[in-house]
């Protein structure tokens, strides 16, 4: 509860508390000492009060006795008045002393008071006797009063002395007590002061430590090191808030920098893949150009051939040359663009047609096409090189009837394009080489190739889809044929 209150307090309030309480304690101690010293001084003053009172009593006794004697001698009115006044003064002085049994001094005072009462009685009788002119009586009374006066003076004198001795002792005791109190006060103040200084030092250090660490952290952050430790981010005071704000700021900066870095990385990757694509394109184009010195010339020539064959009503020749012309035209236009799957399939149809004309229908080509997938976009020139590979390395030199099956289908988000032959098959080693890009199934130097290798095809599909797993090559062994399965996502 207190700790929570403390944590929620501002630094100003904490410092106020830290300063106020010790100051209050010092103040209270000072007040306590001051009151004690004052009471001590008051007691010292009081010490000699009794002596003063006894001196007054003795003086008034002398006055009373003197005034009585004077009256007895001259019986004057002024003497009588002086006597009455002295009598009253003396009675007042006695009242000041007080009568009790409390202690030896008090008993001595009691003796004086009792003697005084009798003395006053005698003196009064003596004065009355004088007024009544009873010479014998006032003479006897005076003698008696004289003796009692001497007794009283002696008793007062002794009591005064006794009290003075005691009071002097008291005085010295009080003085030493005062001195002791002085020393005590100084010691207490020193102790409290030292404790106070130590407490304040520890307190301010504990309060400023998070600030110090924060400044160190700021230096580290300024130096680019975001690996910082921030103390007391939960504190509710100003330091806590600054710590939290700083931590938040460092976090934000770090996140921002991280985002920038990722974005740059992504951009760099994109650029890289774009470059790769361009390289492959260039490569494909180069191969294409190397294979066909002038496709445009060839294409135009073929078109002229087709028109010629048409005019001669040679329909099959016309169809053949037309297909040839379409095939080359495709090669020219589409290498750097994506095309629909349908276009790729048409190209394969044309290619197979051309080959079957060449090889007299040796190639048995079957299609199982999912029409819904025809509109899917794929890189151009990816099916024909595979079919070409299946023809050249799969079924060309076999003794049995060669078949090539092409199938498109969909499983989940993936579109599968399968090109299978029943040729010589492929070893696993070779499959792995092809998939890793080391092996090139199509020999670009061969005359019946369009020059685009499988590695090029796989690489372009990978770049196009952004996936690594774009092709499976399945062969169950020698003479068991080979199946190439291209996997393209529905949405690239």
């Amino acid at each position: 509860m207190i700790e929570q209150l403390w944590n929620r307090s501002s630094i100003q309030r904490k410092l106020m508390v830290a300063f106020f309480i010790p100051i209050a304690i010092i103040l209270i101690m000072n007040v306590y000492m001051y009151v004690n010293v004052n009471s001590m001084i008051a007691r010292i003053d009081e010490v000699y009060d009794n002596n003063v009172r006894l001196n007054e009593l003795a003086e008034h006794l002398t006055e009373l006795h003197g005034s009585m004697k004077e009256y007895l001698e001259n019986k004057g009115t002024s003497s009588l008045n002086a006597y009455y006044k002295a009598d009253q003064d003396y009675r007042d002085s006695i009242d000041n002393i007080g009568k009790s049994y409390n202690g030896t001094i008090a008993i001595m005072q009691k003796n004086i008071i009792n003697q005084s009462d009798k003395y006053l009685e005698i003196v009064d009788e003596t004065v009355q006797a004088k007024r009544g002119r009873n010479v014998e009586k006032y003479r006897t009374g005076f003698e008696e009063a004289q003796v009692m006066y001497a007794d009283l003076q002696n008793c007062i004198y002794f009591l005064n002395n006794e009290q003075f001795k005691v009071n002097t002792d008291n005085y010295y005791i009080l003085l030493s007590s005062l001195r002791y109190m002085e020393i005590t006060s100084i010691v207490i103040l020193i102790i409290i002061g030292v404790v106070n200084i130590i407490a304040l030092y520890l307190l301010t250090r504990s309060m400023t430590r998070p600030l110090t660490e924060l400044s160190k952290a700021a230096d580290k952050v300024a130096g680019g090191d975001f690996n910082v430790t921030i103390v007391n981010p939960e504190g509710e005071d100003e330091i806590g808030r600054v710590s939290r704000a700083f931590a938040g700021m460092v976090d934000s900066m770090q996140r921002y920098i991280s985002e920038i870095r990722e974005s740059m990385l992504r951009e760099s990757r994109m650029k890289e893949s774009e470059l790769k694509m361009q390289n492959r394109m260039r490569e494909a184009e180069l191969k294409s150009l190397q294979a066909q010195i002038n496709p445009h010339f060839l294409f135009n020539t073929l078109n002229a051939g087709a028109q010629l064959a048409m005019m001669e009503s040679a329909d099959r020749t016309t169809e053949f040359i037309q297909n040839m012309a379409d095939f080359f035209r495709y090669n020219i236009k589409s290498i750097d663009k994506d095309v629909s799957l349908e276009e790729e399939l048409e190209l394969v149809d044309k290619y197979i047609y051309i080959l079957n004309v060449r090889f007299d229908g040796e190639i048995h080509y079957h299609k199982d096409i999912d029409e819904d997938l025809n509109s899917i976009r794929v890189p151009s020139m990816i099916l024909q090189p595979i079919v070409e590979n299946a023809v050249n390395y799969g079924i060309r030199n076999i003794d049995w009837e060669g078949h090539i099956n092409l199938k498109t289908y969909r499983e989940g988000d993936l579109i599968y394009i399968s090109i299978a032959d029943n040729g010589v098959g492929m070893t696993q080693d070779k499959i792995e080489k092809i998939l890793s890009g080391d092996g090139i199934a199509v020999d670009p130097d061969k005359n019946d190739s369009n020059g685009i290798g499988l590695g090029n095809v796989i690489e372009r599909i990978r770049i196009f889809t952004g996936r690594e797993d774009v092709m499976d090559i399945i062969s169950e062994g020698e003479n068991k044929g080979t199946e190439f399965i291209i996997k393209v996502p529905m949405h690239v």
Partner: protein
Amino acid sequence: MNESGVIRKPNNNYGERALRIIALSIFLMLIVAIGSAIVYNSLRDRMPGIVLNETMEYKGHYAFIVKGEDEDFWRGVYYAACDEADKGSIYIEDLRDYLGVNYDDKDLLRVAVNSSVDGIIYGGSIDDEVRELIDRAVSEGIGVVLLQNDIEASGRQCFVGVNNYELGQMYASQIADIMSTETDPKAKTVDILVDKNMSEGTTNVITMAIEDYFADNYPQYPLPIFNFKAINSDDIFRVEEDIRSLFLDEENLPDIMMCLNSIYTRSAYQAIVDQNRVGEVQIIGYYVDRSILEAVNKQIIYSTVSVDTWEMGRYSVQALNEYRQSGYTNSYMPVNTQVVGLREAGKLIAVGEGSS
């Protein structure tokens, strides 16, 4: 660039430590402050001698007035009286403490009466003036107890002490003892040292008691020849001189010297040693203290009469208390007396050494 980022280290100790520091320092300061205040107050309260506010409240106040020459004896009585008085919170005031220099016992008695004390224990000289003062005190309701010397004719409430006749008989037994050591005892000269103020009646009682003792117990012995030597006890230095002069008068040296108080006993003992008269004069003393016992043990003093001062002091206070409470008390309270001879002195010394 390191990517591990900001570590938020909750400084759990921060608030807690600050609080602990404050709490500890406040606690320390309070301990120091309160502790020193307590220590200071206790030291101040324990400081001796401050009597401004003495709280001892007495229920009564008796004056103790005795004649000053036999200090040891009366000091014993005074302490016993104080001891008894403490039980009833009575204050015993020895007026000689502050008036003794200029005042004699009669003056002190007057002061006590004029001070309207609650009771007076008086062991001073006896004369008519004293009797009048005693009567005045009694008339004012102040109880008076007399010690040692009685004035039966006065209005005193009680006499506490030894009956002079009894005392005389004890001295007589010692004289007879001395005579019994001789085969043919002759009449002994006995100097009886008495205060010059002692009444003739008192001395007569003592001599009568001695004579009676011899008549009753040793009729065959010749009666001692008594010489009363008046000693001026008012001046303590004169006492010693007077007694010493007795030993210088070789022709009139007594066979036996009877001392009726402790001052005379000590002075006689000192003088007999100084004058080398040990054995020639037999001293019969009064009172028992260490030096007198040593003297008895060394046979410098033949024997001494011990009066129980403790009983005397106690009885006097008891008598006054009784009088204050009931209005009357025993008129005579005898105290125990004992003759201490060689054998007893040896025992007492042994007991004293054992106890010390």
